């Protein structure tokens, strides 16, 4: 062999060796910084001052444990709450160590990692991710494990478990739940009592029907001399996080649970959209959008409700924690959101964060051990520290312990809403992602739609409003009708493809 050939072979061998050696990075790369006095800190406050301390606490049996990673979405104090739960798990046993990894856009990154074949062991998603992930076969079904560990349906508030199921199989388990309700500013009620009484409203209680809500909102709204809002009583788009809930407060529904039909254009839904549009028409869409531009987000002292710019909002169980952060002495109340006259209540949207085990992860059994522990002992820790209610039905003793000193003053209201007969979850249909996307587009379209000027030419006063309502109603019916046709087509395609795939599988 000539030298050149030799060199070439050596190079190729070296490269092949390098390719062979290179491995995906694993979680359990230990950071050997030893911190004195960590045990004292742990005993005192049951928390670690730094990741170094945390690692040091488990140094002794670090290598004997199976290390798994848990990707979760939260930031700020919610992340610390979850970390405390993870710490409690790691402390409670010696065979598994869970690495809590704070991940932005967790659903996107998780899907990428799962498809790429390199996923974490536990991933924290949102309940509206369950269906797409299940359809894509990205999560492991949990029914067998649940049966073996004795986790039955009656451990849960049923709707929260149903959210985790797709076509009868459980793909996730609940993490922290959410229900929504009406938050109302008691100071505003007190200060504007005379205006409320003049409008026929009772300043000592929040509205109970949508018609009352409109009257309250109108009475409490203040305007600048030029007509722009100063303080608004209520705006459907503030914060506008639950657009798919409005039809339900009108007695409608987005689908028929029995037949699976997508009932987007039921008369009640149309009335809900009309009601939303009436706010845009009454106060002026541009006025409202300029008004809303100055608001901060939910974690800011300039949030519309926290800052007293809007007197009533539809918000969730997590919101009191954020009010506590910026204005804890704000005098506000929480009540079930009003429904239309004749529609039974109280009712609320139920959604949640969920935990799943990705397909293709390295340690599914250990992931399940952690998941099981969370369902029985972890949830009270994290739900309490995040100020939320529970998705499970604990024993009376555990329930008392959970409620005692719970940071959320309105825990009972939200808990009752979670267990209420008429509370609802989003349609469990395979095309839910498209449904939600199209719904948002339809909502925006209706909100921003302006009727052609010539149709309203020359009309004033009562005739003008009547014609405007008519035109808006026609547009809403058309939009929703179009949406329904499109979704039904999509549903048919999905069913067809499923049948084909099942046929393939049977062969």
């Amino acid at each position, binding site marked *: 062999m*000539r030298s*050149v*050939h030799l060199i*070439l072979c050596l*190079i190729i061998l070296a*490269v092949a060796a*390098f*390719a062979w050696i*290179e*491995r*995906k*990075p694993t979680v359990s790369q230990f950071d050997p910084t030893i911190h004195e006095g960590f045990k004292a800190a742990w005993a005192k406050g049951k*928390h670690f*001052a730094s990741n170094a301390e945390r690692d040091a606490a488990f140094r002794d049996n670090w290598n004997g444990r199976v290390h798994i990673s848990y990707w979760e979405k939260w*930031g*700020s*104090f919610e*992340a*610390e*709450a979850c970390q405390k739960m993870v710490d409690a798990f790691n402390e409670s046993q010696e065979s598994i160590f869970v690495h809590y990894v704070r991940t*932005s856009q967790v659903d996107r*990154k998780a899907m*990428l*990692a799962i*498809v*790429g*074949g*390199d996923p974490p062991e536990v991933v924290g998603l949102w309940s509206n991710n369950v269906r797409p992930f299940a359809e894509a076969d990205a999560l492991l079904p949990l029914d067998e494990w649940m049966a073996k560990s004795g986790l039955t349906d009656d451990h849960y508030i049923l709707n929260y478990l149903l959210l985790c199921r797709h076509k009868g199989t459980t793909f996730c388990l609940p993490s922290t739940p959410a229900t929504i309700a009406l938050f109302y500013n008691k100071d505003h009620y007190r200060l504007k009592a005379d205006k409320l009484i003049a409008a026929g409203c009772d300043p000592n209680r929040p509205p109970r029907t949508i018609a009352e809500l409109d009257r309250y909102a109108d009475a409490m709204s203040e305007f600048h001399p030029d007509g722009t809002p100063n303080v608004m009583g209520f705006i459907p788009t503030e914060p506008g996080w639950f657009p798919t809930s409005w039809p339900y407060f009108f007695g409608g529904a987005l689908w028929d649970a029995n037949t699976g039909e997508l009932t987007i254009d039921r008369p009640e839904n149309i009335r809900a959209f009309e009601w939303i549009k009436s706010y845009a028409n009454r106060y002026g869409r541009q006025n409202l959008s300029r008004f809303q531009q100055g608001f901060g987000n939910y974690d800011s002292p300039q949030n519309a409700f926290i800052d007293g710019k809007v007197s009533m909002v539809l918000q969730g169980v997590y919101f009191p*924690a*954020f009010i*506590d*952060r910026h*204005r*804890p*002495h704000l005098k506000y109340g929480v009540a079930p959101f009003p429904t239309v006259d004749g529609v039974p209540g109280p009712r609320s949207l139920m959604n949640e964060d969920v935990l799943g085990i990705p397909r293709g992860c390295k340690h599914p059994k250990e992931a399940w051990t952690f998941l099981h522990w969370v369902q029985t002992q972890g949830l009270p820790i994290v739900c*309490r*520290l*995040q*100020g939320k209610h529970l998705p499970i039905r604990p024993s009376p003793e555990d329930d008392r312990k959970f409620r005692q000193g719970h*940071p959320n003053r309105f825990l009972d209201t939200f808990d009752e809403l979670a267990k209420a007969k008429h509370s609802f979850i989003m349609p469990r249909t395979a095309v839910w992602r498209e449904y939600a996307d199209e719904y948002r587009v339809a909502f925006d379209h209706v909100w921003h739609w302006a009727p052609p000027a010539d149709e309203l030419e020359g009309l004033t006063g009562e005739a003008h409003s009547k014609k405007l309502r008519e035109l808006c109603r026609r547009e809403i019916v058309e939009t929703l009708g179009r949406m329904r046709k499109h979704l039904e087509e999509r549903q048919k395609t999905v069913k067809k493809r499923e049948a084909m795939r099942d046929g393939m599988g049977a062969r």
Partner: protein
Amino acid sequence: MSSVGEKKTPWHLRTVVHLVLIVGGLFFILPLVWMIATSLKPLDQTLMRPESLTTAFFATGYHATINGTEYPVTRDRPVELGKGESLYIVTPAKAFAAGELTLPFGPDMWKKSVSFTDEERRQMDANVTPTMHVLADENNRYDPAAGTLSLRSGRVVRADLVRRVTAAEAPPGETLYVVREWRPEDTDTKGVSSPFVKVERAWDILPDSRIRTGPKVIPNNYPVALRRVHFTRSLGNTLLLCLMTVCGTVIASVVVAYGFAYLEFPGRKALFALTLATIMVPFVVTMIPVYLMYRSLGWVGTFKPLWVATWFGNAFFIFLLRQFFLGLPKDLLDAARIDGCTELEILWNVIVPLSRPVIAMVALFTFLGTWKDFLGPLIYLNHEKQFTLSLSLQAFASEHGGTPWHLLMAASTVFSLPLIILFFFAMKTFMRSVATTGLKG
């Protein structure tokens, strides 16, 4: 504007050309200058609308003497006092928690609230001691007659007056500012505005004339930015990748081009034409099946997808090298063959030394391509530990909580520097590479 002939371009045309080139050159160079200028500024000055060209490019640094010591300071905010209005600088008689200055509620509320992180709590709990000065303004009012300070939290504490500030303190035409000691670590966007830090530092209220201005550069932006981007780690990853791809591309392309140029085998012409055709196949078309192929091999999440393919050759460089080889004198080859060398030896001993410039160009182009590559690492690298410089920079740019332009620009400058330095060292190779590509026709 022609370049031919012995005639010198007349002076007026020359001026026009210079003018055009200078103006055009500004478009090309100004962004880079802007990048460097921003990288040396503190964040608050980056976000302001620049009032003039000087403030756009140069940060203003302030210095002031507070309590006898000179500090670099920042101007927190201007103080507007009407006639008869005054602010007070006080010291508390007893210590209290710093959070009481900025939060509209007291320690009893934040102690039992779950809504704060541990770090936030630490900052809020830190004590404002009697040695520190507190600004009594509309949020924390001081009653000089009673000697009490009404904290924002609602509590009233006793405080001693240090100084009363009125509009008279500002000479006519000047504004009063709250100035505060500025430390280099402030340039890191996290943890600057904590209430405790604000009182712990040296601060005062001074008029313009007692604040000395001067240009300020903050080289500290660079270490901070590089830390946030995990520079050493990312640089290592990028260099490793570059090394593997350059070696692979060069070795494979040279070998294959030699085969196309000097060796005969059936189907050579057709294969070469096919090679040319593949240059036109866009990456987007093959991206997904290639990804799926790597996935089934289990290589997603490692570096392998980014360099293994280069060890099989690159169509464009194979073409280039073959054209070059064909232009070399044939007799050298024949002589070597007669001497009984194997083809590989001929390649190594004869062709390669003659082709050094072109090979250098291939290496350079590949290095550039891998250094800049973004889509590849985006798809295949999932763990932060493996990120290349491109990915780290992009991850840094898309972090939550406002973009720290000054740090981002500092990281960008450092990221671009190696290539520019390389350019100046290898300028001839660059320019020649350009010429050869142009000759392709």
